[in-house]
């Protein structure tokens, strides 16, 4: 198999398979979560909790300034990932081809800056797994795997864009394949936080909202 065949496979059957597993996995995980149910609230609530839920979903996306030192790099790479994934033109074309609609892209030099921030943030976050005591005690082996699976698309994408090594076609194929690996791993690892975060925030936020704290 040469790199052109590899690229064609990655863009075709590979992508179809990975998307399938990702969608399948996310739906499965949602069923798993919601099947466990939640006890009815019998206490007289102060509000419906909807506002609290929405507020929490939004507010927790902004780090508390006083914890910036410990969590800043992690937030930074999340912002970086968001910008790079959703505002790099070739990526938007990909989404458009699947979703049927698109949105404006950012110029490449801005994407470039965010890529560097993402890479930096991820490396810092990985190092903090060794140096930060509370993070280290929480760390399990799969955390490193998940980190690598997330880092691969970023670094291969960056290398592809800048043509740092090897053949562009080959790098592009590897980049797409690494994204596919990420898509497959996503629902079945802690990367599930990419969708379950909204559920957790909603549950907590609406509970606080009902009690009047939010």
């Amino acid at each position, binding site marked *: 198999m040469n790199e052109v065949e590899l690229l064609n496979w990655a863009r075709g059957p590979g992508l179809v398979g990975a998307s399938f597993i990702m969608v399948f996995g996310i*739906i499965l995980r949602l069923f798993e979560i919601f*099947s466990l149910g939640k006890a009815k609230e019998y206490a007289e609530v102060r509000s419906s909790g909807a506002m609290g839920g929405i507020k929490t979903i939004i507010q927790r996306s902004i780090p508390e300034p006083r914890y910036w030192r410990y969590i800043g790099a992690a937030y930074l790479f999340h912002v970086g990932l968001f910008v790079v994934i959703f505002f790099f033109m070739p*990526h938007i074309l990909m989404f458009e081809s699947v979703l049927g609609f698109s949105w404006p892209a950012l110029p490449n030099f801005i994407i470039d800056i965010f890529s560097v921030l993402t890479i930096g943030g991820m490396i810092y976050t990985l190092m903090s797994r060794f140096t930060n005591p509370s993070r280290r005690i929480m760390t399990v082996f799969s955390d490193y795997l998940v980190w690598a699976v997330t880092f691969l698309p970023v670094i291969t994408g960056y290398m592809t864009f800048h043509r740092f090594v090897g053949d562009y076609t080959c790098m592009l194929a590897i980049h797409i394949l690494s994204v596919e690996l990420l898509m497959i791993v996503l629902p079945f690892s802690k990367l599930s936080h990419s969708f379950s975060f909204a559920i957790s925030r909603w549950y907590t936020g609406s509970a606080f909202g009902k009690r009047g704290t939010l």
Partner: protein
Amino acid sequence: MTKKTHRLSDELQKHGISRRSFLKFCTAMASAMALPPMAANVMAETLEKVQRQSVIWLSFQECTGCTESLTRSHKPSIESLIFDFISLDYHHTLQAASGDAAELAREQAMHAHKGKYILIVDGSIPTKDDGVYSTIAGMTNLDMLKEVAKDAAAIVSIGTCAAYGGLPKAAPNPTGAQSVSEIIKDKPIINIPGCPPIPVVMTGVLAHVLTLGIPELDSHGRPVAFYGDSIHDRCYRRPFYDQGLFAKSFDDDGARKGWCLYEVGCKGPVTHNACATLKWNNGTSFPIQSGHGCIGCSEPDFWDAGGFYKALSTSNAEPGHWAGVALGAGAVVGAAAALANRHSHKQAESDKTEITLDDMKESDA
């Protein structure tokens, strides 16, 4: 068609080509191939001394576009002279002989220049059903290729069909088309892909083979000198790509302003060829300059890369079409998992006993 061998320098003089213009040609060739300046002199000296090189040109599953490109894209120029000074001993389109006489010429050349002739192939070779899908004088392409390749000094695969199978090999490949390199394993093979290849690339590579031997090749057997860079890297529209300025269709404002054609399917980033630098029609233009994206014709399997007008970063399949199935499958398996979860949950609920005040009174064991 076998001729008496002559020195190239004699022939040049006979045709009124001065040494100065010959040197100019060699320099141009050398620079097109990014050879060091000294190479031009070496080429000139060697070319002057070489004898006419016997060449057998086999055309298989092809459209003659490569020959057209080679012969018709230029006014008679010094490049075409090269063909006067090779001995083109067999070529369907160009040879005068036909039928048995033509085949005889081929056999004579093979015999007279055994081990020394160069084999040029255009077109792919059908291999399915013993190769019956294309025959010449009752002989399958497959057999003819094997026969001629056996005593060739080197093989040059001209065009994407010969180099990588090309259009005949496109899915579902009904004839079992293969490239030369898939069939012949024991000869040096130079691939000059393109649909068709750029004329000067063909002549340049031949000049190199005649003078300096086989040029440096990439992993796809292409001369690095012409195929080392991607179209995208050398494209004059590249700055628009970097700034994020794209034509969204072929008739929008962006297209008129000459912005990057990535979004309308340009395959420049994954295509290695010299179009953006050497251009076509005597350096006049190339597809992107005339407003169409690169279709990637010098890459293996370019025909199956998912559509000329589909952006490179999009899928060449339809992952969206499977989303519904994935949702359904997820829901079915999810529902099963949910039932299992509910069952475990209820089981645990009924298995646990009520905690009573008596439990609180137990002394700690």
